[in-house]
Every structure is written in structure tokens, then in C-alpha cells.
């Protein structure tokens, strides 16, 4: 099969574009961070940390592995951070979320984590309690106050 130079160039160009499309992260993909109080000396692998955060957030357990009592803060479920956290960390659907909390509320009075809209207010809240944690869009978290640190990052 004979391929002209023009065809070869065209083929390379198309392949490059397709390759970049696959390799390069979509423009609308956000990075998110799970934030904890800086005094919380939890040391876990990222996989374990994600599992622990899920259990603590759903209040299946209440203590961090180091014994610190947890205090989760939620975000608006309609926010990009809320959606990404539910999909990637909690790995549950909206209905499963509702069912879980209905059961928790009615059997032992446990309620979902308090929702905080403002990232700035959230950072302040996390800084107040040793066991506090939540999540945010990485860009919104910006320069963190000294009392807050990143536990791990995740993408949607």
C-alpha cells in the first residue's frame, strides 16, 4: 500500500489529536481534597484513608484509627465537590444515601454530617476540632490555614 507524504502527515496529525484527547485530562475534571485538622496525626495509606473517611462520614464508626472522635462536615450534594465525593469516596447513589440516613436516624438518632456551604467557613470549622474533616475543590481550598491539612486528593 502506497501512502503519500500528505496522507502520512494527515495521519500523524489525527493520531496526535486523538492521543492527546485520551491522555490529557478533560478540561472540566476537578481535583478535590479531603481536609482534616492539622493536629490529627492520622497516618494511613491513601486506600485505607479513603475507606476510613467513608465509614466516618457515614457514621458507621465514630473514631479515627488513632482514637480521635470524628466530626465530619458535608457539602451541598448538588455541588461538584459533593457529587465527586459521593461517587468516588462514598461510592453510593443518592437513594442509597437517603436510605442509609433514614435507617440511622430512626434506629439510633444519628443524623447526616452538617452541610457547610462556604469553603472559608468550612476551613474554620475543621480548624476548631481535632477530629473534624471534610472535602473541597482543591482550588477553592487555596492556601490552607495552619490548622488544616490535606489528608488526600481525589479526582472525579
Amino acid at each position, binding site marked *: 500500500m502506497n501512502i503519500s507524504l500528505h496522507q502520512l502527515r494527515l495521519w500523524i496529525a489525527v493520531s496526535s489529536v486523538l492521543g492527546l484527547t485520551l491522555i490529557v485530562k478533560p478540561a472540566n475534571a476537578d481535583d478535590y481534597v479531603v481536609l482534616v485538622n492539622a493536629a490529627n496525626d492520622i497516618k494511613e495509606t491513601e486506600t*485505607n484513608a479513603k*475507606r476510613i473517611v467513608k465509614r466516618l462520614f457515614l457514621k*458507621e*464508626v*465514630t*473514631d479515627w484509627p488513632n*482514637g480521635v*472522635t470524628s466530626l465530619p462536615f458535608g457539602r451541598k450534594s448538588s455541588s461538584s465537590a459533593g457529587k465527586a465525593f459521593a461517587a468516588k469516596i462514598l461510592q453510593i*447513589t*443518592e*437513594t*442509597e444515601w*437517603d*436510605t442509609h440516613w*433514614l*435507617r440511622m*436516624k*430512626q*434506629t*439510633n*438518632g*444519628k*443524623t447526616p454530617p452538617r452541610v457547610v*456551604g*462556604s469553603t*472559608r*467557613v468550612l476551613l474554620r470549622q475543621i480548624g476548631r476540632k481535632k477530629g473534624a474533616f471534610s472535602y473541597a475543590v482543591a482550588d477553592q481550598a487555596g492556601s490552607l490555614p495552619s490548622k488544616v491539612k490535606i489528608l488526600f486528593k481525589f479526582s472525579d
Partner: protein
Amino acid sequence: MKDKPEGVCAPDIIPAVRRWQYRTIVKKASAGCFLAIALVILAVPVQANDRVKALEDKLNQTIKQMEMLTKELSAIKKSNAPVAKAGSGDIAKQLKQIRMRVDDVEDVVSNVEEKVGSRAVVHAFDALKLDLGGFLHIAATHVVGEHGQVTSLNRTTFELLTKATLAEDWTMFVAQAFIREGSPTFKDPQGRTDPDINLGLSAPTVIAWGNYRYSDKLQVQAGRFITPHGIINIDHFPAVLLDTEQPQFLRPFGGATMFPNFVNGVHLYGQAFAGMDGKGLLKYHLFGANFAGLATEVTAGGRLAYTLGDTGWTVGGNYSYGERANSGNRDQNDYHLFGGDFLFDRGRFLWKNEIFYTKENLDQNRFAAYTQPAFRITPRWIAFHRFDWLENGAGFGQQMENATGLTFKPNKNVHLRTIHTHKHFFKGGGRRATNAHLFQASATLSF
């Protein structure tokens, strides 16, 4: 006018000499004057050039100084320019941040105002936190028996749930029920062919416990609590149940067909992650209590359950010891209960299984089991079937139920159901076998 030179005589020769001398002197004087004038004339431009040169020098110096100043000024301007630019950028950025913060604060205020408005805010007398919830459960049932049929809006139950956080590790939880209901019964002598429903009123305190949390591994509960056996008894509340009638061994409400549904006493429980790379969850319950129907005797037991990581499986084992109330000799009418439960909850499948056996000292041993597979058709629609078997030790034969239902959750606070139950009474104790059909529609609204 020409002046004569002084001392010059005027004889003939002398005047001529004197004229010649005079002319010579005049010529010389004229030449000198001319030379002097010429010199003066020549001298003036020389002085002017020097001054011009001096002025030019000064001008050059001034220009140089101006150039230097200009350069310095330019340099200063250049050095200040980025600062000024950055400064204005910072201010704009800070202004933007302040506006965002104000927006945030306004959002918070707006949300609070929307929730509170001009209404009075309720405060707990003395608690860190007070949560209120509850549900209203309504059911209509149509029963078709061998010798008749009845229809009734037979359940209207309101329960108010209150949880107070007294301190970080101390909580209390109360479920106060207001009940107007009647379970389907059969009014024929054998109690199985002629259906009936008798509504009754009651306002029991279903649950009332105080809880101390030492850690996730150890918590202590005291008061009135749900007996920690099995799956559905622990779930208990209608809002989370597919079939609110519950399996046969948990009826009647508040009874003790196999074990008491509720007890008053002390309950130790906890959980820890163990095995399966930290994914396995081990839960334990230990309790010592009185059954309300037998207040002076102790019922004690426990449950051990293990969740197998992310597989969806939970396996539980149950044991308890207690006394039966319906005997003349309480001290001898004790029983040992053994039970197992298996739960699978993953994806679209939800499968609950429980099996219990009691070894009775005086009465006949009892046996109960059910299996209830459910399928999540969509997140809001669930179909289920329950096969339910009971030998209640009364000696009148076994009872079997097959319940098939469809539930729908239009939103998270409403649970609608329609269920058909085929009930079969086996022959035994002089009673003949028969069937009954129950059709029930129910709604549970919770908040």
C-alpha cells in the same frame, strides 16, 4: 582741529623737521591707535567665546544632570511600576475575596432566615444538641378468610423520635408511639377461618435509652431498647422496612413469640474492623434485661455479627436465655434461644434471612425462619418476596406465609407499599388446615 606738539620751534628748517616729526609722530600715533583699536576689536571676540564656552560647558553639565535625573526618574518609575501594578492587583484580588466572603455570609444568613424567619427558635433546656424526628404509618388491610372477609384502615401510628446529645459521649434516645391499630385476627373458635380486626389505642414508650460511648469498641446503653437479635428486629422501624407487618416470629408487636422484641435493661455493644485487609467489621451485643411481660425475670444474651468486607454479606449468630411468662411455674419455664441470620446487600439485591430455634424447658420447642429476597428495580422501586415459617410451640400446627410486595419511594421521606400475603395454617392440635389472603396498602411518612 590739529594741535601743535609742545616744545617744537618754528624756524624754517625746524618747522619742517618739526612737521616731519609731527607727521611721523601722528602717523605712529595713528598706527598705534589703529593697532590698539584693532587689538581691542580683536580682544572682544576672544572674551565672548570664553564666556560662550563657559556657558556651553555649564549647559552641557546641566544637560548631563538632567539626563542623569531623567535616567534616575525612569529607573525609579521602572522599579515602582511593577509594585504599583501588583499592588493594584492585590487590592482587586482582596476586594474580590471580600465580596465572596460577604456573599457566603449572605448565603448563610439567607438560609438561616429561610429556616427560622420570624418563628421562635426552640432550645433544649440543657443539651449540646437536640434532634427530633418521627414517622406516621398508615395501612389499610383487606383480609379474605375461609369464612369471610374484612377491610379496615387498621394502622395509624405516629412515633416521635427524640435524640439529645448531653455531652460528647453521652446521648439519650426516646421513641414515643401513639398507636391506633389492630392486627388481623380470626374470630372463629380455631382462630384461623373467620377474619376480624379489632382496633385498639395505646401510647407506649417503645424505646428510651441513655448511652455512654467509651469508644467504638465499647458503648453502654441502659433503659428500654430493641432486643439485639437478627436483622429486622434491629431495623424495626416501618420507614425502613419493606414489609411493616414483619415476620411472624416478631408478632405481635411487643410480644415474645421467640424472644422479646423489646427489653428493659443494660446493653453493651461495640464494633471493630478485623480481617479482610481491614475491611471486615465485627459487631457484638451483650444484654441483661427484663421483658416487660415478665418484669422480675432476667433475659440475657447477645449477638455476634461479621460483615465480610465489601462483599455485601453479613453473618450473625444469636443466643439468649429467658423465661416464658405464660406458665404457672416461672422458675422452670425457661428457654434457650439460638439463631442465625444472613444478610446480603449489594447493588440491586437485598436478601434477608433469619432462623431461630428455642429449646423450651416446659413448652414445646419453637422454630421460626424466613427468607426475604428483594430486587431494586430502580432506586425508587423495590420488589420483594418473603417466605416465612413459624412453629410457635402452641401445638396447633405450623403457619406459613408467602408475602409478595412492591414498594415505591417517591422521595426520601415517603415509602409506599402494596403487599399480598398468602397465609397457610397447617393441620395440627385438632385444627384443620386452611388459607387466608391479606391485601395491604401502606404509607410511611417520615421526617
